[in-house]
């Protein structure tokens, strides 16, 4: 009923230790939509994210515990290799997705980009193109597909959610046109073995996960250690202030969408080689798994918060959980979808639990205090201040 009273300037004479920032932020009212995540100071959030990554480590141990408990074969080279092949491609795509979510955008077309690239690979290979030329074409295709997303978002100004839902369908449709109902599966031996053998000397480690590790280090350094990475956080937290500081926000976003297109195109080839074939419906539904991994990794859906290490841990929690559940015969792929959906919601919900708890406490307190007002004669004790509230 009453319009929301804006939270205005802090008048606290001295800054407050970051650790205690847990309640109302002293900053300006959050932009419309009440970005729950933006209600926390970075210090507090940083503390929470660290806890989030610790929680992921615990979850990882727990998941592997379940797996070992379910079957003695869980830690076998064969099972670990399967786990790796299942998660590696998704995990690689999660890296550019992390950067895109960091700046407050999303790319839902990743799996369709993967599919269109894989189908293009199949088409060109079946028409006798040399593999080197195909690489070049597929990379160029990735650039184009990413640029289409980027242009629609940055130049036309459409929301990336809508744009990439559109290209999700569009690219998938094109992919189906390229190869039709055909299946191509006569790739040469070294490529076909990518999905069969692990990295030499480490038989449990798939090539995809090895590539993921290398890329994760690069992405981690870029995101956490370079001016470019810092500008991504700035854009995600406040893109207006970022552009006032000379950051070219549209160009950065454009670059990220192209990066995502190229990475997904390359993963499309890798995935085709791992399967040793390209057919219809390749990689269908991958986009949601990729986003689940990113959000589970602690990257805020509102942008501006998250770490690469969190995403790396999340990839293995996700893959490990899948493997652990499937290895016990009582679970099937469909059951895992239920778990996966639940995880997605949890990973968006849990970081905001302190906020919800705060609101609930506030509500209780108001109700209690109202009870006091009813009897004004009794000397009314002041309700206890909300714990950790800072303004």
């Amino acid at each position: 009923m009453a319009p929301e009273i804006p939270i205005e300037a802090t008048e606290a004479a001295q800054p407050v230790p970051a650790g205690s920032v847990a309640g109302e932020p002293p900053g300006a009212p959050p932009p419309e939509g009440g970005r729950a995540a933006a209600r926390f100071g970075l210090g507090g959030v940083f503390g929470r994210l660290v806890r989030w990554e610790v929680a992921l480590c615990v979850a990882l141990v727990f998941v592997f515990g379940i797996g070992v408990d379910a079957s003695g074969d869980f830690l076998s080279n064969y099972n670990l290799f399967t786990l790796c092949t299942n998660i590696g491609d998704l995990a690689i795509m999660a890296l550019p997705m992390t950067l895109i979510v960091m700046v407050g955008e999303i790319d839902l077309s990743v799996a369709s980009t993967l599919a269109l690239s894989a189908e293009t690979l199949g088409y060109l290979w079946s028409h006798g193109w040399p593999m080197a030329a195909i690489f070049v074409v597929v990379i160029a295709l990735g650039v184009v597909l990413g640029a289409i997303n980027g242009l629609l978002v940055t130049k036309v100004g459409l929301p990336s959610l809508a744009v990439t839902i559109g290209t999700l369908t569009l690219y998938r449709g094109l992919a189906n046109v390229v190869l039709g109902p055909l299946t191509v599966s006569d790739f040469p031996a070294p490529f076909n073995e990518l999905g069969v053998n692990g990295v030499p000397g480490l038989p449990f480690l798939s090539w995809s996960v090895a590539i993921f590790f290398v890329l994760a280090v690069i992405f981690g350094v870029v995101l956490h250690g370079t001016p470019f990475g810092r500008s991504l956080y700035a854009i995600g937290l406040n893109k207006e202030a970022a552009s006032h500081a000379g950051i070219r926000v549209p160009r950065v976003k454009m670059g990220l969408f192209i990066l995502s297109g190229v990475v997904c195109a390359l993963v499309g080839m890798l995935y085709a080689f791992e399967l040793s074939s390209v057919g219809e419906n390749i990689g269908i539904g991958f986009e949601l798994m990729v986003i689940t991994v990113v959000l589970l990794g602690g990257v805020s859906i509102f942008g501006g918060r998250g770490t690469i290490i969190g995403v790396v841990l999340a990839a293995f929690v996700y893959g490990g959980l899948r493997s652990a559940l499937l290895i016990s015969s009582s679970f099937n792929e469909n059951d895992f979808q239920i778990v996966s959906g639940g995880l997605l919601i949890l990973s968006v919900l849990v970081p905001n639990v302190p906020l919800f708890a705060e609101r609930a406490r506030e509500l209780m307190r108001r109700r209690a205090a109202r009870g006091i007002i009813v009897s004004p004669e009794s000397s009314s004790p002041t309700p206890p201040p909300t714990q950790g509230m800072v303004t």
Partner: protein
Amino acid sequence: MREVSEQGDPTNPGGQGSQNVERGRLAGGAADSPSTASTQLLSQTGARPPILSVREATKAFGAVHALEGVSIDLYAGEVHALVGENGAGKSTLVKIFGGVHQPDSGELVDADGHALVLTGPADAREAGIAIIFQEPTLFPDLSVAENVFIGRQPRRSGGRIDHRAMRRQARALFERLGVPLDPDRPARGLSIAEQQIVEIGKALSFDAKVVVMDEPTAALSATEVARLFGVVQSLRDHGAAVLFISHRLEEVFAICQRVTVLRDGRRVLSQLLGELTAGDLVRAMVGRDIAARERTQHDAGAAVLRVAELQRAGIFKDISFDVRAGEIVALAGLVGAGRSEVARAAFGIDVYDSGRVLVGERALHKGRPIDAMRAGVAFVPEDRRQQGLVMDMSIIDNISLASLRRLSRHGLLIPSVERSFASDWAARLQVKYGNIANPATSLSGGNQQKVVLAKWLSREPAVIIVDEPTRGIDVATKAEVHRLLVELSRSGVAVLMISSELPEVLAVADRILVMREGRLVAEFARANASEERIMAAATGQADVPVALESSPA
């Protein structure tokens, strides 16, 4: 003559019998206590009880004591000023009135001496307390009348909203306030001043007897301030108690009868304004004397920033001016005259249709701030929370944000280098912080502004554009910012300052350009500028002898 409608009387606290107040013109005279006989509350000025008091309120947030034993008495028909530096505890006190915060100890007491417990904004409203914020939040798609009566719309049979009654009542409210605001206008597109009027109308509509105004004038132009004063006067004449918060002492003296000064969460002074001078207040606020700054004339160098025939359809037209090295040029004018828009276009935040911006001999790329920055331009924007700072980033990250390239080695940022860079600049600007790794939200407004300045000065710019550099910051920091701008100009920096505070313009600027409705209409040298002349040019009241050097005729 205005007449109070059937709405009832705001001076009537307990709801016992309605006394209609008839009152004369709004433009009441001097700032003495009300001289009416029509309500008993107002008649016995001496011994009347306060309509609302805070007694010995203490409020701490963690280790920070925002308020310590602060008492304040609000009287019906009186405008009470609350002043103090940023961080003195004003906002906390406002939030206690608004039910947003509850004091750790101490209490709110109503006119009958009963303790009031406010546990939320709804309670405050029930208790007859209305808070008018600097920038109100209305529902943009609803009409003015709907905003006033939101949630309490007059009903017809069957629960339907009686739009006619709502409009009539809203119109009556605005007439009572002396502002002809059309109740059917959508809230979208209302100026901030008009939005405040709507909020005040809403306060009247539920018979608020205490109206708290938190820096209402900070974002208003001079004419809007004058109109707001008329409204405050009428609130007062109708027997409401007004708590008026402002950083501008001349406003305090113009409209208030009593003043309370807070410093570091404590009350240092509370008395009738008639007994005080502006100097007394400043001393009370800062706890020391501020020496009047004398600006010595010095020679300006070559033109560094040159804006030539800049034009943007519907926003500004034919804007040409130079800023020379070592010179402070102020861009004065009313809010909405296009000053900020010119500055934003020059820096590259916004695009423009035609014209050129040059720094030295280098033409700046349109719409590209990084190009202006590389040419040596810095821009301190108007809205430090939205544009100047990434509030959730640390103080370090904010100071280094515009210098990241320079702070990296082989493309990598070195945390220790960044930290020492930030703490060095924070120290130069005397930013007061607890921990430099804390987010910018942990700072008071004045210190936030210093962080923005640190961010830009650390780039050692040749040109600095500052848009309302002292808006909403305390007197002491304001003086520091002025001194800083003067020092910068002495060291050869070209300074372009946009300010709506004429005393500031006159104190700091070497040359004053005046804009009106998107055009440059006058230019004054420091020696022959006065508030009157600038205002006349800005409002177009007089035929100003246009003395533009670079006017394209």
